[in-house]
């Protein structure tokens, strides 16, 4: 349950404060700084792409500068078509990150109520059986098929990723609702005459949302990887619109020749975004544990 010897919140202090210590080897202060950086990356990258002036047009190939290494003009070099890697890497954030976040939000909105709803009764059982059958299907194929099914724009990618991720939330929220339903304080709430709706909101949801939130952040990180994988495979948003996955795919042939920059920079950007989301997930988890481990 809890970890011994950890400082508890002193009585006057609210338990809901920002986490002061992380569970890994980072100290309190650096953990907070790290979280701040992570949030800055996730929020800042798309904003940068939207509002900041890019040094080159990310869509216009320069036939005089094909595959040149990073230099003062092309900070990240140019790719095989002569397009500026730096501008495209930033530009891709405008698409990749919002798609990942939107897909997560969508799966959250669909999955959580389903899970809370599926705790009992025939309909609940039926929902779970469908989810189980889904789990047996190859995920990437489902995603590809659903994107093909719908055409291949950004919205379609969002829908496809949401379809893949939603079962996770159904399971998770169902599991925590099931556990909490038998919690003693829920019984106590029933004993003082709380209505089922009041119990659901004031007692069950209040204690379940934290876990879901952590999972949501992790899912967003995962979605980012899946989107990149799909784009890497050539499914999803059409070229020449830059996405990290597609850029990496373009860069592979150069990579084999030893011209690493066209693939390396979008990869680094993507990994940075994924890592940031993971850091945020860790921070959220810590915050929740702060409440839970004092039990």
């Amino acid at each position, binding site marked *: 349950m809890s970890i011994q010897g950890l400082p508890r919140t002193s009585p006057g202090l609210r338990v809901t404060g920002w986490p002061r210590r992380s569970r890994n080897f980072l100290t309190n202060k650096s953990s907070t700084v790290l979280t701040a950086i992570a949030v800055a990356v996730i929020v800042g990258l798309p904003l940068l792409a939207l509002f900041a002036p890019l040094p080159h047009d990310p869509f216009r190939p320069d036939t005089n500068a094909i595959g040149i290494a990073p230099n003062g003009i092309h900070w990240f070099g140019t790719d095989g078509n002569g397009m500026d890697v730096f501008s495209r890497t930033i530009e891709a954030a405008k698409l990749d990150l919002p798609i990942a976040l939107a897909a997560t939000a969508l799966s959250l909105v669909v999955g959580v109520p389903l899970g809370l709803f599926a705790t009992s009764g025939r309909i609940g059982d039926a929902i779970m059986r469908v989810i189980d059958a889904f789990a*047996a299907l*190859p995920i990437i194929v489902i995603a590809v*098929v659903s994107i093909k099914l719908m055409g291949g724009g950004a919205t379609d990618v969002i829908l496809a990723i949401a379809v893949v991720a939603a079962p996770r939330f159904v399971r998770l929220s169902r599991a925590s609702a099931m556990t909490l339903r038998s919690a003693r304080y829920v019984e106590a709430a029933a004993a003082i005459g709380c209505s089922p709706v009041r119990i659901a909101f004031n007692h069950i949801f209040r204690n379940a949302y934290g876990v879901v939130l952590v999972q949501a952040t992790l899912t967003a990180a995962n979605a980012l990887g899946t989107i990149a*994988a799909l784009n890497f*495979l050539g499914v999803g948003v059409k070229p020449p619109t830059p996405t990290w996955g597609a850029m990496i795919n373009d860069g592979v042939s150069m990579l084999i020749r030893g011209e690493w920059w066209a693939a390396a920079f979008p990869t680094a950007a993507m*990994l940075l975004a994924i890592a940031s989301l993971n850091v945020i997930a860790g921070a959220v988890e810590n915050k929740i544990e702060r409440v839970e481990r004092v039990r």
Partner: protein
Amino acid sequence: MIRYIISRIAIAALLLFGLVTLSFGLVSLLPGDPAVALLGEYATPADIARINSQLGLDKPFWERYFDYIGNTVSGDLGKSFFTGSPVSSEILTRLPNTLIYLVPGLLLALLIGMGMGTWAAYRYGRAADKTFTAGVSVLMAMPEFVLALLLLFIFYQQLHIAPAPLGMLSSVDIPPPRVTGSVALDAVIAGKWTTVSSILSRAALPIVTIGLFFAAPFGKTVRTGLLQVLNSPQIEFARACGLRPMQVFRYALSDVRGALMTYMVLLFAAALSGAAIVESVFAWPGVGGWSLDGVLKGDVPVIQGFVLIMGATSLIGYVLLDTLITLLDPRTRNTVLHAKKWHFGLRSPRQAATTRA
């Protein structure tokens, strides 16, 4: 016992049927006309109609559905719209190619994950554990294709140890005579050891990719599971009885066995469905790349076949696993074998144990 097995089989059959329906429904709704895709955009309507009737696409939906189920049951998964080769035989030739790197890759993951996870659990809170945790977070943040590309860059481009990612056989290798259809198996049968070793050297990077990629989640599971058990009264009592560290470890392992087996099957399913990625990076002639191709082209029978086979494989895996876990654990084994006969009272052993605990 027999009743239990029958019930398991019945459940599996029911799920399989649902899967067939799902794969048919999913794919039948694909937009776009396969005939157009096949003939190109300038095909005449007459040509399209001819192709459609050839492919049986002019029949009503329900008729196609029942045809599909009938064919599937008899083992006929249809023919590719594009190459015309039967889907079932394509899968049979390609699946071994996929398994060549997938199974050793997963075993490698098991080895690494188990070793590192155990080590981290035993050194909980110390440098080794922290390194492990950090390593896992890095690996978990890395999508499979990035890992594959990274390995390729290091071992092929920089160190020149690994061969080029150009498939299973190079042009200089002589393909063995066809016996089973699977090149690797045929090479073994024909005794062409140079070909076999060439295949193995090309499989090395995919194996390492899979091994590293799945070692992270596996190791994490091992560590969490062991940590829980190692702090349990059961292990404390074993230690208090003076059991040797290896004996204690075996006790701990017997407790997390079920969870690890479950995880292994889950990983296998995940690896199969992610095969498309690894295979497209290494141009591997496996079942994943082939199915991806089919999906991209809208080759309906190929997609259906792949979804069905992969789904069925993981389903059967789940059911087998469930049965195995139930039978391996004496607590649940008794429930299954002699239902309604308890050694004591009315409560089940599990309940009795938990209420007392």
